[in-house]
């Protein structure tokens, strides 16, 4: 149950410059890998490539290899990949199928498309709703939910397809503070329960809380990679357009002011 990218590059159709180059990345079972970087650094492109949408859906060209459990996925069609890797996007509204009158049908849309037997569609849908603690929304109209709730419904729609890996592209970027808290908590819970997640975020606080390893992209290449603690404490982070998490900023400010690190230990969580 691993997703491995080796020497992966990607360029959009009609573009001469590559949007991604020389990406090496391993996402093991139960692992959470965070991706940071300035806007236009290639975070979204990396998500599309990892989930197989690029080049299958958006066109363009790819190089390098992507292995799923050691198997090369190069010739796989999108619907085969989508059963193994789920991808969620920033905008909750455009992820709704537009054909479901209730949240339950919305979440069931993916497994229905995959042709999963009916009773399994039902049980997978209930399980996904339960995992994200939104069973109480099952009967509601997805159009009439808040942004945060819609984002949870979209994530439940991915979970109901029973993927082995989840790719989340800035899932809280377009949410209000309440929605950000709601979705952030849910992702943290998924991570704690052992889900395998590749997540991009501009807000590094969430990454610091849930990611074991973090990579930082710059101009489509990996600029930093390592454990979350090491990478997020890197003083060069700001130059790459990434704001360090609040606790690292605080600790650095404290160090500058001459306070001993040990006295702030409890902040490390």
């Amino acid at each position: 149950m691993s997703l491995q990218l080796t020497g992966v590059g990607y360029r959009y159709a009609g573009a001469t410059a590559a949007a991604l180059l020389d990406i090496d990345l391993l996402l093991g079972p139960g692992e959470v890998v965070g991706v940071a970087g300035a806007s236009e650094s290639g975070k979204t492109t990396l998500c599309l490539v990892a989930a197989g949408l690029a080049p299958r859906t958006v066109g363009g060209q790819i190089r390098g290899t992507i292995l799923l459990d050691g198997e090369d996925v190069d010739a796989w069609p999108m619907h085969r990949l989508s059963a193994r890797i789920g991808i969620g996007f920033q905008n909750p509204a455009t992820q709704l199928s537009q054909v479901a009158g209730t949240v339950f049908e919305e979440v069931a849309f993916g497994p229905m498309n995959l042709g999963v037997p009916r009773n399994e569609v039902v049980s997978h849908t209930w399980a996904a709703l339960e995992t994200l603690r939104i069973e109480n929304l099952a009967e509601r109209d997805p159009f009439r939910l808040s942004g945060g709730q819609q984002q949870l419904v979209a994530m439940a729609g991915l979970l109901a397809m029973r993927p082995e890996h989840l790719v989340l592209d800035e899932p809280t970027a377009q949410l209000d503070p309440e929605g950000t808290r709601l979705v952030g908590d849910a992702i943290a819970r998924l991570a704690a329960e052992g889900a395998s997640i590749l997540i991009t975020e501009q807000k590094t606080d969430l990454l610091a809380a849930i990611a074991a390893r973090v990579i930082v992209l710059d101009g489509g290449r990996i600029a930093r990679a390592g454990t979350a603690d090491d990478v997020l404490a890197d003083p060069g982070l700001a130059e790459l357009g990434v704001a360090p998490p609040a606790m690292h900023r605080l600790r650095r400010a404290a160090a500058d002011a001459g306070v001993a690190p040990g006295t702030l230990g409890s902040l490390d969580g």
Partner: protein
Amino acid sequence: MVIRWLAALAAFAVVAFLGIGVFGDFSEAAAGNTWALIAAVGLAVGFITYAVVEYLQTRALRSISQQFDTRTIVLMPLAIAINIILGAAVANALKIPIYLDSIGTILVGALAGPIPGALTGFLANILWQYVVPPPFQGSVAAPFAIVAAVIGLMAGLFSRYGWLRPRPDRRTDQLVGGAVVTVGVIAVVAYLGFLGYQEIIGPAGIGVESDNIAFVILGWLALALVAGTIVGLLVILFVRRDLTAAYVVVGGLLTGIVAALISAPISANLFGGVTGAGTDFLVAAFRQAGADIGAATLGQGLISDPIDKITTFFVVYLILSAMARRTKARFPQGEKLIDGEDAVADDSGEWRGAPA
């Protein structure tokens, strides 16, 4: 490929001869209507023949199915909604003889191809009548579904042959021909429209009336579009020096004439020529002048439809111009809508595209 086209042509010819043989008498005033109906049925049979031959040859319908990628499927509901909302607003609030209910149809035809265009028009009219909530429901839309389908089909074919590709910065001598065509067609259509206006609407004046605020707003938009089309086309032609203005006008004119020929017999036989929209004023004028129902609806159509379809093609061309090049290129027929060639990315080395 050749065999399919020959089979389609043969089928069309058979239908045409049969039609002429059975309905032999063309001396009546309504003969033009009969011709149009026979031609429409012949076209439909021709297309079905093409599809059947392709299926027999290849056991698949790739020429049709490749026009329906996910992107097209996502665009179609949007196009249908645009058709219904604008169409309902114009029919309800605007007392001028146009429809503006095929912008979405022509947009899909241009981006995705003739078959998705036809299906968009057809479905839009069926849904408009059966399942759209009031106040947008249309009471007379479904019988005209065949007309909407033909409009989408024609838009798809025009686009397939590159008619809607931008042709900016042409030399003056190249523009002269385009200018003659554009100005000539606009002048004739505008003159006909002006006659209609003077005859009937003149005393009452053009206005927008409805209790529904959305309809009032959209009604004014429709007026603005018709008025802006003439100016807009001339700006495109003479300021951007874009020769495509001429193609837009000719495409709209041809589509309008065909739409009028097919819809007139439907409107005349089903509803006595009225549909509850601004077009009824024109029908009334023709009737007063002594024309029978068939001739009156045909006359109304031949005035309304070219104005309507030229406006619509112009709006679609504007929408296409506002879309990002990369976005357009991803649609099945998008390559036909962008000027120049993309820098051909080399397939050599390790770079490779999506799996087939």
